[in-house]
């Protein structure tokens, strides 16, 4: 059921006194209702938890991974994941998890080195051990890692890539880029989309026509080829960081149109509402009407649309980097890591190289859950 009254501004009602009885839907503020519905949505909560974990892993990547993400080891190239074990080859149970040592043999037929676990060497995994030095959060010098093994043992839980770099460290580090580029892109999208959408809907006329036409032209290009064309224009000599920001600008340049359309249709609807006329009748300025009466009402929709556009941006970054048009090494992102897995033979021999892809799927899935949950929660009058 929808609220029938159009004369009361829900955003202003939302400021009504809080703390009403939990059963009385009518007395809760809009945001309280949203929060309640969101918390009750199990998938959305699962998505939130997954995202918190992913962002923590990315933020504290140096702590969670035992090695530095650029440290190469010639001895252990394309090493399969070393799973932590509790039971050894003789069936004995160890209370502390351990990994086997690695035995490297030359496959004389294929002429490549083969890595095999050597059950005679057992390296117990230590927790909070000292290892490579790093700067926690980029500030605090530290050398404590969550886990690690004594030399000469190795602890590549997700294996290594073709340069012998720790895939765990690289994947967690890649998350820093892949998980944040969408957020930066969305921030820009919100700014562009709501400003242009509001202008288009509120002023109408020529502004609106031009804006709509522009959106339509941009939407006439398939997204990834368009992104690629923009990305190709980024000068190759730019630094990694500059490139990262250029890429997020490009992502939002193509993405703002959807949000602008939504905001425009909302503003068009609010323009006809009685509370807008009432505000105008008491002499409120355009700015006041837009800022006090329209944007707060559209805010929940803006948040929902923005959240739901993050997955698309993550996928776009991954695809572009995979194609060599996005993030460039030595910066790592999940797409860059997946560049190692471009052909079937490599994947059949080294399937663990696809692990960064799993992270992509989990992250995108989690954002979709959260976005869906927000969308359902944003319609508080639907019972």
């Amino acid at each position, binding site marked *: 059921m929808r609220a029938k009254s159009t004369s009361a501004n829900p955003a202003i009602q939302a400021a009504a006194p809080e703390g009403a009885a939990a059963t009385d839907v009518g007395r809760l503020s809009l945001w309280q209702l949203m929060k309640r519905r969101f918390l009750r949505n199990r998938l959305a909560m699962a998505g939130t938890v997954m995202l918190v974990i992913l962002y923590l892993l990315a933020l504290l990547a140096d702590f969670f991974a035992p090695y530095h993400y650029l440290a190469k080891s010639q001895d252990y190239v394309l090493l399969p994941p070393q799973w932590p074990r509790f039971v050894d080859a003789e069936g004995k149970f160890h209370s502390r998890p351990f990994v086997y040592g690695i035995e490297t043999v030359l496959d004389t037929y294929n002429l490549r080195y083969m890595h095999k676990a050597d059950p005679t060497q057992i390296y117990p995994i230590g927790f909070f051990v000292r290892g490579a030095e790093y700067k926690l959060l980029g500030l605090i010098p530290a050398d404590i890692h969550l886990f690690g093994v004594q030399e000469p043992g190795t602890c590549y839980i997700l294996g290594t890539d073709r340069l012998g770099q720790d895939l765990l460290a690289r994947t967690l580090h890649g998350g820093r880029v892949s998980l944040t580029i969408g957020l930066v892109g969305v921030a820009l999208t919100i700014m562009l989309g709501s400003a242009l959408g509001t202008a288009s809907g509120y002023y109408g006329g020529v502004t609106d026509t031009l804006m709509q*036409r522009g959106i*339509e*032209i*941009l*939407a*006439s*290009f*398939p*997204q*990834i*080829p*368009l992104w*690629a*064309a*923009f990305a*190709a*224009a980024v*000068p190759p000599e730019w630094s990694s960081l500059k490139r990262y920001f250029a890429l997020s600008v490009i992502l939002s340049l193509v993405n703002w149109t959807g949000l602008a359309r939504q905001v425009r249709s909302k503003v068009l609807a609010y323009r006809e509402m009685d509370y807008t006329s009432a505000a105008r009748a008491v002499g409120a300025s355009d700015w006041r009407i837009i800022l006090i009466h329209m944007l707060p009402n559209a805010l929940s929709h803006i948040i929902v649309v923005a959240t739901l556009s993050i*997955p698309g941006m993550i*996928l776009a970054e*991954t*695809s572009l980097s*995979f*194609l*060599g*048009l996005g993030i460039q090494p030595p910066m790592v992102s999940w797409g860059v890591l*997946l560049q190692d*897995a*471009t052909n*079937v033979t490599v*994947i*059949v021999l080294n*399937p663990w190289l*696809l692990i960064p*892809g799993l992270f*992509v*799927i*989990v992250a*995108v*899935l989690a954002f*979709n*859950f959260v976005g869906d949950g927000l969308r359902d929660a944003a319609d508080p009058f639907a019972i």
Partner: protein
Amino acid sequence: MLGYIGRRFLYMISTLFLVSVVGFLIINLPTGTYVDFYIQRLQNEGTHTSLEQIEAITKRFALDKPLYWQYGKWLFGFVRGDFGLSFEFNKEVKELIWERIVYTVIISLATLIFTWVVAIPIGIYSATHQYTLGDHIFTLVGLIGLSAPSFLLALVLMVIAQRSFGQSVGGLYSPAFVDAPWSWAKLADLLKHLVVPIVVVGASGTASLVRMMRGNLLDILNMQYVQAARARGLSESLVILKHAVRNAIHPLIMLLGMSLPSIISGATVVSIVLSLPTTGPMYFRALQQQDMYLAVTFLVFMAIMLVIGNFLADLLLAWVDPRIRYE
């Protein structure tokens, strides 16, 4: 109806014009022209570049003239079927692109049909069996389809296909048929090779179409006219197929045009992984090499496909929806 078609057609022509302007501008964004790139490369290779050669290229493409002049010259050629020269291949662009565009259209259309044929029945099932086990399973599979990057799906499916069927999945033909003349066997071989690309490119589109169909149908099932049709004594299957589904599909036709961009996007990326001779691989290469006429032709052609697709979707919608037809 004819007036409607006429208006839409004129509108489409104006859109095409604007699209060509924007496309040309975007491709010209990189600083420096191909000539700089070309000289650089020849110098890297140690080859001596003759001034005449550079001058010839500069002159032919008016690279020394302002941008609008270049655009005018390019557009004038474009409408007559002269798309310019590929610097990289040193061939006319028109000799390079047609076959690839045809394959792109084939794969896109086949994917479109695949998405609809698969998604609509699943959407109907999910909506009419809301919150049952089947609905949950379809929702979950769909979410994973939406969340996986298409190139990753392509890689995984290729590995599976190779492991279980021992079939080479790259390319469009088996080696034996590549240069063979057309025959039923070659067609069958082509179709076999199209399965993986179509499934991969269509995965996310199918998943989102299922979601939309399910949502729309659930909305429509709450409409009074569905209740009214039931009250008239119609059987449940007739109520759903004749009244509910028919109305739920309308908004999807409107989205038909919008689903094309993601299909073409997906096809470009997947083609690279599966090494299919579509626009994708050559377009990305052209972008990286700053082979501007080749890149701009592909980009504009992809946009043209979309604009025409949108136009056709509009016509289809007008044909099925009396409210638009009688506007």
